[in-house]
Protein backbone atom coordinates (compact mmCIF):
# COMPACT_ATOMS: atom_id res chain seq x y z
CA UNK A 1 0.00 0.00 0.00
CA UNK A 2 2.65 2.45 1.05
CA UNK A 3 4.77 1.30 -1.85
CA UNK A 4 1.90 1.87 -4.28
CA UNK A 5 1.33 5.37 -2.90
CA UNK A 6 4.97 6.20 -3.45
CA UNK A 7 4.71 4.97 -7.04
CA UNK A 8 1.60 7.07 -7.55
CA UNK A 9 3.47 10.20 -6.49
CA UNK A 10 6.41 9.32 -8.71
CA UNK A 11 4.15 8.45 -11.64
CA UNK A 12 2.17 11.66 -11.48
CA UNK A 13 5.22 13.89 -11.34
CA UNK A 14 6.76 12.06 -14.30
CA UNK A 15 3.45 12.07 -16.17
CA UNK A 16 3.14 15.83 -15.75
CA UNK A 17 6.44 16.28 -17.57
CA UNK A 18 5.25 14.08 -20.44
CA UNK A 19 1.96 15.94 -20.50
CA UNK A 20 3.68 19.30 -20.88
CA UNK A 21 5.65 18.05 -23.86
CA UNK A 22 2.62 16.28 -25.32
CA UNK A 23 0.68 19.55 -25.39
CA UNK A 24 3.26 20.92 -27.83
CA UNK A 25 2.83 17.95 -30.18
CA UNK A 26 -0.90 18.11 -30.10
CA UNK A 27 -1.09 21.87 -30.62
CA UNK A 28 1.13 21.81 -33.66
CA UNK A 29 -0.70 18.81 -35.05
CA UNK A 30 -4.00 20.57 -34.51
CA UNK A 31 -2.99 23.72 -36.31
CA UNK A 32 -0.93 22.48 -39.25
CA UNK A 33 -1.58 18.75 -39.25
CA UNK A 34 2.05 17.90 -38.82
CA UNK A 35 3.97 15.88 -36.26
CA UNK A 36 6.81 18.10 -35.11
CA UNK A 37 9.48 15.49 -34.61
CA UNK A 38 11.92 18.11 -33.39
CA UNK A 39 9.71 18.88 -30.40
CA UNK A 40 11.44 16.33 -28.14
CA UNK A 41 14.72 18.05 -28.91
CA UNK A 42 13.20 21.41 -28.12
CA UNK A 43 12.49 19.91 -24.70
CA UNK A 44 16.15 18.87 -24.51
CA UNK A 45 17.25 22.39 -25.47
CA UNK A 46 14.99 23.69 -22.71
CA UNK A 47 16.73 21.43 -20.21
CA UNK A 48 20.14 22.68 -21.37
CA UNK A 49 19.13 26.35 -21.17
CA UNK A 50 17.98 25.62 -17.64
CA UNK A 51 21.30 23.93 -16.92
CA UNK A 52 23.25 26.91 -18.21
CA UNK A 53 21.07 29.25 -16.16
CA UNK A 54 21.68 27.19 -13.03
CA UNK A 55 25.44 27.23 -13.61
CA UNK A 56 25.39 30.99 -14.17
CA UNK A 57 23.35 31.57 -11.03
CA UNK A 58 25.64 29.37 -8.97
CA UNK A 59 28.74 31.13 -10.23
CA UNK A 60 27.02 34.44 -9.53
CA UNK A 61 26.42 33.26 -5.99
CA UNK A 62 22.64 33.59 -6.14
CA UNK A 63 21.29 30.28 -5.03
CA UNK A 64 18.31 30.51 -2.77
CA UNK A 65 15.73 27.89 -3.68
CA UNK A 66 12.43 29.16 -5.09
CA UNK A 67 13.58 32.50 -6.53
CA UNK A 68 16.45 30.83 -8.32
CA UNK A 69 14.17 28.18 -9.73
CA UNK A 70 11.80 30.84 -11.00
CA UNK A 71 14.63 32.68 -12.76
CA UNK A 72 15.87 29.43 -14.30
CA UNK A 73 12.37 28.56 -15.45
CA UNK A 74 11.70 31.93 -17.05
CA UNK A 75 15.09 32.06 -18.74
CA UNK A 76 14.60 28.60 -20.16
CA UNK A 77 11.09 29.40 -21.39
CA UNK A 78 12.20 32.61 -23.10
CA UNK A 79 15.24 31.20 -24.87
CA UNK A 80 13.60 27.92 -25.82
CA UNK A 81 10.59 29.77 -27.22
CA UNK A 82 13.02 31.56 -29.50
CA UNK A 83 14.34 28.19 -30.65
CA UNK A 84 10.80 26.99 -31.32
CA UNK A 85 10.04 30.08 -33.34
CA UNK A 86 13.26 29.73 -35.33
CA UNK A 87 12.69 26.07 -36.13
CA UNK A 88 9.24 26.84 -37.53
CA UNK A 89 10.48 29.85 -39.46
CA UNK A 90 13.50 28.11 -40.97
CA UNK A 91 12.39 24.53 -41.46
CA UNK A 92 8.60 24.41 -41.73
CA UNK A 93 7.18 27.65 -43.06
CA UNK A 94 9.07 27.54 -46.37
CA UNK A 95 7.51 24.11 -46.94
CA UNK A 96 3.94 25.14 -46.27
CA UNK A 97 1.85 24.23 -49.28
CA UNK A 98 4.38 21.61 -50.27
CA UNK A 99 3.48 17.92 -50.20
CA UNK A 100 2.47 16.53 -46.82
CA UNK A 101 5.61 14.59 -46.03
CA UNK A 102 7.99 17.48 -46.72
CA UNK A 103 7.68 19.24 -43.35
CA UNK A 104 7.79 15.87 -41.61
CA UNK A 105 11.14 15.05 -43.17
CA UNK A 106 12.30 18.55 -42.39
CA UNK A 107 11.26 18.01 -38.75
CA UNK A 108 13.36 14.87 -38.50
CA UNK A 109 16.22 16.89 -39.95
CA UNK A 110 15.74 19.62 -37.36
CA UNK A 111 15.74 16.98 -34.64
CA UNK A 112 19.15 15.75 -35.79
CA UNK A 113 20.43 19.30 -36.16
CA UNK A 114 19.43 20.26 -32.62
CA UNK A 115 20.92 17.11 -31.12
CA UNK A 116 24.22 17.55 -32.90
CA UNK A 117 24.31 21.25 -32.21
CA UNK A 118 23.93 20.67 -28.48
CA UNK A 119 26.38 17.78 -28.59
CA UNK A 120 29.01 19.96 -30.24
CA UNK A 121 28.29 23.05 -28.15
CA UNK A 122 27.93 21.32 -24.79
CA UNK A 123 29.80 18.06 -25.18
CA UNK A 124 28.43 14.57 -25.28
CA UNK A 125 29.03 13.77 -21.64
CA UNK A 126 26.20 13.56 -19.11
CA UNK A 127 25.73 16.82 -17.21
CA UNK A 128 24.91 16.62 -13.53
CA UNK A 129 23.77 19.42 -11.21
CA UNK A 130 23.47 19.68 -7.48
CA UNK A 131 19.86 19.41 -6.32
CA UNK A 132 18.37 22.90 -5.99
CA UNK A 133 15.53 21.81 -3.81
CA UNK A 134 16.52 18.84 -1.68
CA UNK A 135 14.38 17.20 0.91
CA UNK A 136 10.72 16.49 1.14
CA UNK A 137 7.87 15.50 3.33
CA UNK A 138 7.39 12.06 4.78
CA UNK A 139 3.81 11.24 3.98
CA UNK A 140 3.61 7.82 5.49
CA UNK A 141 5.82 5.55 7.52
CA UNK A 142 4.83 1.91 7.36
CA UNK A 143 7.23 -0.53 8.99
CA UNK A 144 10.55 0.22 7.39
CA UNK A 145 9.08 1.78 4.22
CA UNK A 146 8.96 5.54 4.03
CA UNK A 147 6.70 7.31 1.55
CA UNK A 148 8.44 10.48 0.46
CA UNK A 149 6.83 13.38 -1.33
CA UNK A 150 9.86 15.41 -2.29
CA UNK A 151 9.72 19.18 -2.57
CA UNK A 152 10.83 18.80 -6.14
CA UNK A 153 7.87 16.57 -6.98
CA UNK A 154 5.53 19.05 -5.34
CA UNK A 155 7.11 21.80 -7.35
CA UNK A 156 6.72 19.86 -10.59
CA UNK A 157 3.07 19.20 -9.94
CA UNK A 158 2.34 22.76 -8.80
CA UNK A 159 4.21 24.43 -11.66
CA UNK A 160 2.67 22.11 -14.23
CA UNK A 161 -0.83 22.73 -12.98
CA UNK A 162 -0.26 26.48 -12.91
CA UNK A 163 1.23 26.52 -16.40
CA UNK A 164 -1.59 24.37 -17.75
CA UNK A 165 -4.18 26.63 -16.11
CA UNK A 166 -2.68 29.72 -17.74
CA UNK A 167 -2.40 27.89 -21.03
CA UNK A 168 -6.01 26.68 -20.92
CA UNK A 169 -7.19 30.20 -20.19
CA UNK A 170 -5.11 31.47 -23.09
CA UNK A 171 -6.57 28.99 -25.57
CA UNK A 172 -10.19 29.12 -24.48
CA UNK A 173 -10.68 32.72 -23.36
CA UNK A 174 -8.40 35.07 -25.23
CA UNK A 175 -8.54 36.45 -28.79
CA UNK A 176 -5.16 34.84 -29.48
CA UNK A 177 -6.48 31.44 -28.41
CA UNK A 178 -9.57 31.95 -30.53
CA UNK A 179 -7.41 32.78 -33.52
CA UNK A 180 -5.38 29.63 -32.89
CA UNK A 181 -8.50 27.51 -32.81
CA UNK A 182 -9.82 29.25 -35.91
CA UNK A 183 -6.61 28.42 -37.77
CA UNK A 184 -6.91 24.85 -36.58
CA UNK A 185 -10.50 24.48 -37.79
CA UNK A 186 -10.30 26.38 -41.08
CA UNK A 187 -7.12 28.23 -41.86
CA UNK A 188 -8.37 29.75 -45.10
CA UNK A 189 -11.46 31.14 -43.41
CA UNK A 190 -9.31 32.56 -40.63
CA UNK A 191 -7.29 34.50 -43.19
CA UNK A 192 -10.55 35.69 -44.79
CA UNK A 193 -11.37 37.20 -41.40
CA UNK A 194 -8.10 39.11 -41.39
CA UNK A 195 -6.16 36.72 -39.17
CA UNK A 196 -2.45 36.58 -39.99
CA UNK A 197 -2.27 32.79 -40.04
CA UNK A 198 1.51 32.61 -40.36
CA UNK A 199 1.89 34.69 -37.24
CA UNK A 200 -0.65 32.56 -35.41
CA UNK A 201 1.22 29.41 -36.37
CA UNK A 202 4.50 30.97 -35.19
CA UNK A 203 2.92 31.77 -31.86
CA UNK A 204 1.72 28.19 -31.56
CA UNK A 205 5.30 27.01 -31.90
CA UNK A 206 6.49 29.62 -29.42
CA UNK A 207 3.93 28.54 -26.83
CA UNK A 208 4.61 24.85 -27.44
CA UNK A 209 8.35 25.43 -27.02
CA UNK A 210 7.81 27.40 -23.81
CA UNK A 211 5.81 24.52 -22.37
CA UNK A 212 8.53 22.08 -23.44
CA UNK A 213 11.03 24.35 -21.67
CA UNK A 214 9.02 24.07 -18.47
CA UNK A 215 9.15 20.30 -18.87
CA UNK A 216 12.89 20.42 -19.60
CA UNK A 217 13.58 22.54 -16.54
CA UNK A 218 11.51 20.25 -14.34
CA UNK A 219 13.26 17.22 -15.77
CA UNK A 220 16.68 18.70 -15.02
CA UNK A 221 15.75 19.70 -11.50
CA UNK A 222 14.09 16.37 -10.75
CA UNK A 223 16.65 13.98 -12.16
CA UNK A 224 19.74 16.16 -11.93
CA UNK A 225 21.39 14.71 -15.04
CA UNK A 226 20.83 15.47 -18.71
CA UNK A 227 22.59 14.86 -21.98
CA UNK A 228 21.98 15.86 -25.59
CA UNK A 229 20.03 12.68 -26.28
CA UNK A 230 17.24 12.93 -23.66
CA UNK A 231 14.92 14.56 -26.19
CA UNK A 232 14.54 11.44 -28.26
CA UNK A 233 12.94 9.08 -25.78
CA UNK A 234 11.05 11.81 -23.92
CA UNK A 235 9.80 13.02 -27.29
CA UNK A 236 8.62 9.59 -28.35
CA UNK A 237 6.91 9.09 -24.99
CA UNK A 238 5.20 12.46 -25.13
CA UNK A 239 4.14 11.84 -28.70
CA UNK A 240 2.68 8.53 -27.55
CA UNK A 241 0.90 10.41 -24.77
CA UNK A 242 -0.57 12.83 -27.29
CA UNK A 243 -1.81 9.99 -29.50
CA UNK A 244 -3.11 8.06 -26.51
CA UNK A 245 -5.09 11.07 -25.32
CA UNK A 246 -6.31 11.80 -28.84
CA UNK A 247 -4.04 13.88 -31.01
CA UNK A 248 -5.38 17.42 -31.38
CA UNK A 249 -7.02 17.36 -27.95
CA UNK A 250 -5.31 19.50 -25.30
CA UNK A 251 -6.87 17.86 -22.23
CA UNK A 252 -6.14 14.55 -23.97
CA UNK A 253 -2.44 15.37 -24.11
CA UNK A 254 -2.26 15.97 -20.37
CA UNK A 255 -4.31 12.88 -19.63
CA UNK A 256 -2.18 10.79 -21.98
CA UNK A 257 0.98 12.13 -20.33
CA UNK A 258 -0.26 11.20 -16.89
CA UNK A 259 -1.23 7.72 -18.05
CA UNK A 260 2.11 7.07 -19.71
CA UNK A 261 3.91 8.31 -16.60
CA UNK A 262 1.83 6.10 -14.32
CA UNK A 263 2.04 3.00 -16.51
CA UNK A 264 5.78 3.35 -16.79
CA UNK A 265 6.28 3.91 -13.08
CA UNK A 266 4.01 1.12 -11.93
CA UNK A 267 5.39 -1.30 -14.45
CA UNK A 268 8.92 -0.60 -13.27
CA UNK A 269 7.84 -0.94 -9.65
CA UNK A 270 5.97 -4.21 -9.93
CA UNK A 271 7.38 -5.96 -12.98
CA UNK A 272 10.63 -5.01 -14.62
CA UNK A 273 12.37 -1.75 -15.30
CA UNK A 274 13.78 -3.08 -18.57
CA UNK A 275 10.34 -3.50 -20.11
CA UNK A 276 8.71 -0.26 -18.94
CA UNK A 277 8.82 1.28 -22.42
CA UNK A 278 7.36 -1.87 -23.92
CA UNK A 279 4.50 -1.62 -21.42
CA UNK A 280 3.78 2.02 -22.25
CA UNK A 281 3.80 1.41 -25.99
CA UNK A 282 1.73 -1.78 -25.69
CA UNK A 283 -0.99 0.11 -23.86
CA UNK A 284 -0.91 2.63 -26.66
CA UNK A 285 -1.38 -0.10 -29.25
CA UNK A 286 -4.24 -1.66 -27.33
CA UNK A 287 -6.04 1.63 -26.80
CA UNK A 288 -5.69 2.53 -30.46
CA UNK A 289 -7.16 -0.79 -31.57
CA UNK A 290 -10.34 -0.15 -29.61
CA UNK A 291 -10.39 3.67 -29.74
CA UNK A 292 -8.66 4.73 -32.92
CA UNK A 293 -9.04 8.44 -32.13
CA UNK A 294 -7.48 8.08 -28.69
CA UNK A 295 -9.16 8.60 -25.34
CA UNK A 296 -10.41 12.15 -25.86
CA UNK A 297 -10.02 12.45 -29.61
CA UNK A 298 -13.04 13.50 -31.55
CA UNK A 299 -14.96 11.38 -33.95
CA UNK A 300 -18.04 13.53 -34.08
CA UNK A 301 -20.06 13.94 -37.23
CA UNK A 302 -20.45 17.49 -38.38
CA UNK A 303 -23.02 18.91 -40.72
CA UNK A 304 -21.49 20.51 -43.74
Amino acid at each position, binding site marked *: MAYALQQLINGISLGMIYGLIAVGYTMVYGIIGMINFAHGDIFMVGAFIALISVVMLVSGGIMDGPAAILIVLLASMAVTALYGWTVERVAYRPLRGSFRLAPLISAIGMSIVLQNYVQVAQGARVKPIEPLLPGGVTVLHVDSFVVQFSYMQMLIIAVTLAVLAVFTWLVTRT*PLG*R*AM*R*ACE*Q*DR*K*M*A*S*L*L*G*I*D*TDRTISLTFVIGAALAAVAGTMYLLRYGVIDFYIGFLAGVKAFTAAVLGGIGSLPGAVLGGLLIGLIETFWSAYFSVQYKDVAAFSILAIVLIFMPTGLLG*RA*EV*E*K*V
Partner: protein
Amino acid sequence: MSAPMLAIEGAWTRYGAVEALRDVSIEVGQREIVTLVGANGAGKSTLLMTICGAPQAQKGRVLFEGRDITRMPTHEIMRLGLAQVPEGRRVFPRMSVMENLLMGAQVAGHDPKPLLDQVFALFPRLEERQAQRGGTLSGGEQQMLAIGRAMMSKPRLLLLDEPSLGLAPLIVRQIFSAIRDLNEKEGLTVLLVEQNANQALRLAHRGYVLVNGRITLRGSGQELLAMPEVRDAYLGGGH
Protein backbone atom coordinates in the same frame (compact mmCIF):
# COMPACT_ATOMS: atom_id res chain seq x y z
CA MET B 1 -21.29 56.54 -61.09
CA SER B 2 -18.59 58.07 -58.89
CA ALA B 3 -15.24 56.34 -58.39
CA PRO B 4 -16.04 52.64 -57.93
CA MET B 5 -15.55 51.01 -54.58
CA LEU B 6 -14.21 47.89 -56.22
CA ALA B 7 -12.75 47.55 -59.68
CA ILE B 8 -11.34 44.45 -61.29
CA GLU B 9 -9.39 45.22 -64.40
CA GLY B 10 -8.59 42.48 -66.88
CA ALA B 11 -8.02 39.80 -64.29
CA TRP B 12 -6.71 36.36 -65.24
CA THR B 13 -6.68 33.77 -62.52
CA ARG B 14 -5.51 30.21 -62.74
CA TYR B 15 -7.10 27.62 -60.50
CA GLY B 16 -4.89 24.56 -60.59
CA ALA B 17 -4.33 23.82 -64.25
CA VAL B 18 -7.49 25.62 -65.32
CA GLU B 19 -7.71 29.21 -66.50
CA ALA B 20 -10.65 30.06 -64.23
CA LEU B 21 -10.88 33.76 -65.04
CA ARG B 22 -10.02 35.17 -68.44
CA ASP B 23 -9.69 38.90 -68.74
CA VAL B 24 -12.50 39.71 -66.33
CA SER B 25 -13.34 43.34 -65.66
CA ILE B 26 -16.13 44.40 -63.32
CA GLU B 27 -16.92 47.40 -61.17
CA VAL B 28 -18.94 47.80 -58.03
CA GLY B 29 -19.98 51.34 -57.12
CA GLN B 30 -20.52 52.81 -53.65
CA ARG B 31 -23.74 51.54 -52.05
CA GLU B 32 -24.53 49.31 -55.00
CA ILE B 33 -25.73 45.73 -55.01
CA VAL B 34 -24.08 44.01 -57.94
CA THR B 35 -24.95 40.43 -58.85
CA LEU B 36 -22.78 38.05 -60.77
CA VAL B 37 -24.66 35.15 -62.31
CA GLY B 38 -23.17 32.10 -63.91
CA ALA B 39 -23.42 28.36 -64.07
CA ASN B 40 -21.52 25.96 -61.85
CA GLY B 41 -17.82 26.18 -62.59
CA ALA B 42 -18.09 29.46 -64.49
CA GLY B 43 -15.55 31.02 -62.14
CA LYS B 44 -17.84 32.96 -59.81
CA SER B 45 -16.24 31.80 -56.58
CA THR B 46 -12.79 32.20 -58.07
CA LEU B 47 -13.66 35.81 -58.83
CA LEU B 48 -14.61 36.49 -55.21
CA MET B 49 -11.52 34.72 -53.96
CA THR B 50 -9.34 36.65 -56.40
CA ILE B 51 -10.58 39.87 -54.83
CA CYS B 52 -9.36 38.49 -51.49
CA GLY B 53 -6.02 37.44 -52.94
CA ALA B 54 -6.52 33.69 -52.54
CA PRO B 55 -5.50 32.89 -55.21
CA GLN B 56 -4.04 36.10 -56.59
CA ALA B 57 -4.71 37.21 -60.15
CA GLN B 58 -1.88 36.36 -62.51
CA LYS B 59 -2.57 39.28 -64.76
CA GLY B 60 -4.69 42.36 -64.32
CA ARG B 61 -5.45 44.38 -61.22
CA VAL B 62 -7.87 44.49 -58.32
CA LEU B 63 -8.56 47.93 -56.88
CA PHE B 64 -10.41 48.55 -53.64
CA GLU B 65 -11.30 52.19 -53.02
CA GLY B 66 -8.66 53.12 -55.55
CA ARG B 67 -5.93 51.10 -53.91
CA ASP B 68 -4.19 48.27 -55.75
CA ILE B 69 -4.68 45.14 -53.65
CA THR B 70 -3.74 42.56 -56.29
CA ARG B 71 -0.54 41.44 -54.59
CA MET B 72 -1.49 41.98 -50.96
CA PRO B 73 -1.71 38.98 -48.60
CA THR B 74 -5.27 37.88 -47.85
CA HIS B 75 -5.34 38.89 -44.21
CA GLU B 76 -4.19 42.42 -45.03
CA ILE B 77 -6.82 42.81 -47.73
CA MET B 78 -9.52 41.68 -45.35
CA ARG B 79 -8.50 44.40 -42.89
CA LEU B 80 -9.24 47.16 -45.39
CA GLY B 81 -13.02 47.01 -44.95
CA LEU B 82 -14.25 44.09 -46.97
CA ALA B 83 -15.68 40.82 -45.76
CA GLN B 84 -16.59 37.62 -47.51
CA VAL B 85 -19.28 35.03 -46.89
CA PRO B 86 -17.51 32.26 -48.75
CA GLU B 87 -18.73 29.28 -50.68
CA GLY B 88 -19.83 26.55 -48.28
CA ARG B 89 -20.25 29.13 -45.46
CA ARG B 90 -17.17 27.91 -43.61
CA VAL B 91 -18.53 28.38 -40.13
CA PHE B 92 -15.98 27.28 -37.52
CA PRO B 93 -17.58 23.96 -36.51
CA ARG B 94 -16.11 23.57 -33.04
CA MET B 95 -16.69 27.12 -31.89
CA SER B 96 -19.88 28.45 -30.42
CA VAL B 97 -22.07 30.81 -32.42
CA MET B 98 -20.86 33.62 -30.18
CA GLU B 99 -17.21 32.78 -30.77
CA ASN B 100 -17.80 32.59 -34.51
CA LEU B 101 -19.28 36.07 -34.40
CA LEU B 102 -16.43 37.40 -32.27
CA MET B 103 -13.96 35.99 -34.80
CA GLY B 104 -15.55 38.34 -37.31
CA ALA B 105 -14.88 41.32 -35.06
CA GLN B 106 -11.43 40.24 -33.96
CA VAL B 107 -9.07 42.17 -36.20
CA ALA B 108 -11.27 45.13 -37.10
CA GLY B 109 -11.22 45.95 -33.40
CA HIS B 110 -14.62 47.66 -33.21
CA ASP B 111 -16.54 47.30 -29.98
CA PRO B 112 -18.39 44.02 -30.58
CA LYS B 113 -21.40 44.84 -28.39
CA PRO B 114 -23.40 47.11 -30.76
CA LEU B 115 -22.44 44.90 -33.70
CA LEU B 116 -23.74 41.84 -31.89
CA ASP B 117 -27.00 43.67 -31.20
CA GLN B 118 -27.28 44.51 -34.87
CA VAL B 119 -26.62 40.92 -35.98
CA PHE B 120 -29.07 39.53 -33.44
CA ALA B 121 -31.71 42.03 -34.56
CA LEU B 122 -31.20 40.82 -38.12
CA PHE B 123 -31.12 37.12 -37.22
CA PRO B 124 -32.88 36.53 -33.88
CA ARG B 125 -32.24 32.82 -34.34
CA LEU B 126 -28.55 33.37 -33.75
CA GLU B 127 -29.20 34.96 -30.40
CA GLU B 128 -31.16 31.90 -29.29
CA ARG B 129 -28.36 29.64 -30.44
CA GLN B 130 -25.40 31.68 -29.28
CA ALA B 131 -23.95 28.97 -27.03
CA GLN B 132 -24.39 26.20 -29.59
CA ARG B 133 -21.49 24.90 -31.66
CA GLY B 134 -21.33 26.14 -35.23
CA GLY B 135 -21.11 22.63 -36.64
CA THR B 136 -24.43 21.62 -35.13
CA LEU B 137 -26.47 24.41 -36.76
CA SER B 138 -28.78 23.77 -39.69
CA GLY B 139 -27.73 24.96 -43.15
CA GLY B 140 -29.88 28.08 -42.96
CA GLU B 141 -28.58 28.96 -39.52
CA GLN B 142 -25.01 28.48 -40.67
CA GLN B 143 -25.69 30.85 -43.55
CA MET B 144 -27.06 33.43 -41.13
CA LEU B 145 -24.03 32.93 -38.94
CA ALA B 146 -21.66 33.35 -41.87
CA ILE B 147 -23.35 36.60 -42.85
CA GLY B 148 -23.48 37.76 -39.24
CA ARG B 149 -19.80 36.96 -38.81
CA ALA B 150 -18.96 38.99 -41.90
CA MET B 151 -21.02 41.92 -40.57
CA MET B 152 -19.08 41.89 -37.31
CA SER B 153 -16.10 43.53 -39.00
CA LYS B 154 -18.34 46.43 -40.06
CA PRO B 155 -17.34 46.06 -43.71
CA ARG B 156 -18.03 48.63 -46.40
CA LEU B 157 -18.05 45.93 -49.07
CA LEU B 158 -19.64 42.53 -48.54
CA LEU B 159 -18.83 39.64 -50.87
CA LEU B 160 -21.49 36.94 -50.81
CA ASP B 161 -20.99 33.56 -52.43
CA GLU B 162 -24.28 31.76 -53.17
CA PRO B 163 -26.08 32.58 -49.94
CA SER B 164 -29.17 30.73 -51.21
CA LEU B 165 -27.46 27.43 -51.91
CA GLY B 166 -29.27 24.48 -50.39
CA LEU B 167 -31.72 26.58 -48.39
CA ALA B 168 -35.50 26.49 -48.18
CA PRO B 169 -37.22 29.26 -50.18
CA LEU B 170 -38.52 30.94 -47.06
CA ILE B 171 -35.04 31.25 -45.60
CA VAL B 172 -33.66 32.46 -48.92
CA ARG B 173 -36.25 35.23 -48.93
CA GLN B 174 -35.32 36.11 -45.36
CA ILE B 175 -31.64 36.30 -46.22
CA PHE B 176 -32.20 38.35 -49.36
CA SER B 177 -34.36 40.80 -47.49
CA ALA B 178 -31.64 41.07 -44.85
CA ILE B 179 -29.16 41.93 -47.60
CA ARG B 180 -31.50 44.58 -48.99
CA ASP B 181 -31.92 46.04 -45.51
CA LEU B 182 -28.21 46.24 -44.93
CA ASN B 183 -27.78 47.95 -48.27
CA GLU B 184 -30.55 50.48 -47.80
CA LYS B 185 -30.14 51.25 -44.10
CA GLU B 186 -26.43 50.79 -43.54
CA GLY B 187 -25.24 51.79 -46.98
CA LEU B 188 -23.45 48.48 -47.35
CA THR B 189 -22.06 47.73 -50.80
CA VAL B 190 -22.68 44.16 -51.91
CA LEU B 191 -21.20 41.92 -54.56
CA LEU B 192 -23.42 38.87 -54.77
CA VAL B 193 -22.64 35.70 -56.63
CA GLU B 194 -25.61 33.49 -57.40
CA GLN B 195 -26.93 30.62 -59.41
CA ASN B 196 -30.40 31.55 -58.25
CA ALA B 197 -30.43 34.32 -60.85
CA ASN B 198 -34.04 35.36 -60.66
CA GLN B 199 -34.11 36.59 -57.09
CA ALA B 200 -30.53 37.78 -57.16
CA LEU B 201 -31.05 39.97 -60.21
CA ARG B 202 -34.24 41.41 -58.77
CA LEU B 203 -32.29 42.44 -55.72
CA ALA B 204 -29.39 43.90 -57.67
CA HIS B 205 -28.86 47.35 -59.12
CA ARG B 206 -26.60 45.91 -61.76
CA GLY B 207 -25.42 42.53 -62.86
CA TYR B 208 -22.88 40.59 -64.86
CA VAL B 209 -23.07 37.18 -66.48
CA LEU B 210 -19.98 35.01 -66.27
CA VAL B 211 -19.54 32.14 -68.73
CA ASN B 212 -16.43 29.96 -68.74
CA GLY B 213 -14.41 32.58 -66.95
CA ARG B 214 -15.44 35.48 -69.19
CA ILE B 215 -17.96 38.26 -68.67
CA THR B 216 -20.43 37.88 -71.52
CA LEU B 217 -23.25 40.21 -70.53
CA ARG B 218 -23.69 43.21 -68.31
CA GLY B 219 -26.49 45.58 -67.47
CA SER B 220 -28.98 46.61 -64.83
CA GLY B 221 -30.73 43.85 -62.94
CA GLN B 222 -33.95 44.48 -64.87
CA GLU B 223 -32.21 44.52 -68.24
CA LEU B 224 -30.51 41.22 -67.58
CA LEU B 225 -33.73 39.65 -66.37
CA ALA B 226 -35.35 40.64 -69.63
CA MET B 227 -32.62 39.26 -71.89
CA PRO B 228 -33.65 36.01 -73.57
CA GLU B 229 -30.20 34.44 -73.23
CA VAL B 230 -30.26 35.07 -69.47
CA ARG B 231 -33.81 33.77 -69.17
CA ASP B 232 -33.02 30.61 -71.08
CA ALA B 233 -29.77 29.81 -69.33
CA TYR B 234 -30.36 30.87 -65.72
CA LEU B 235 -34.04 31.30 -65.08
CA GLY B 236 -35.30 27.93 -66.23
CA GLY B 237 -37.33 29.39 -69.11
CA GLY B 238 -38.29 32.53 -67.23
CA HIS B 239 -41.17 33.60 -65.09
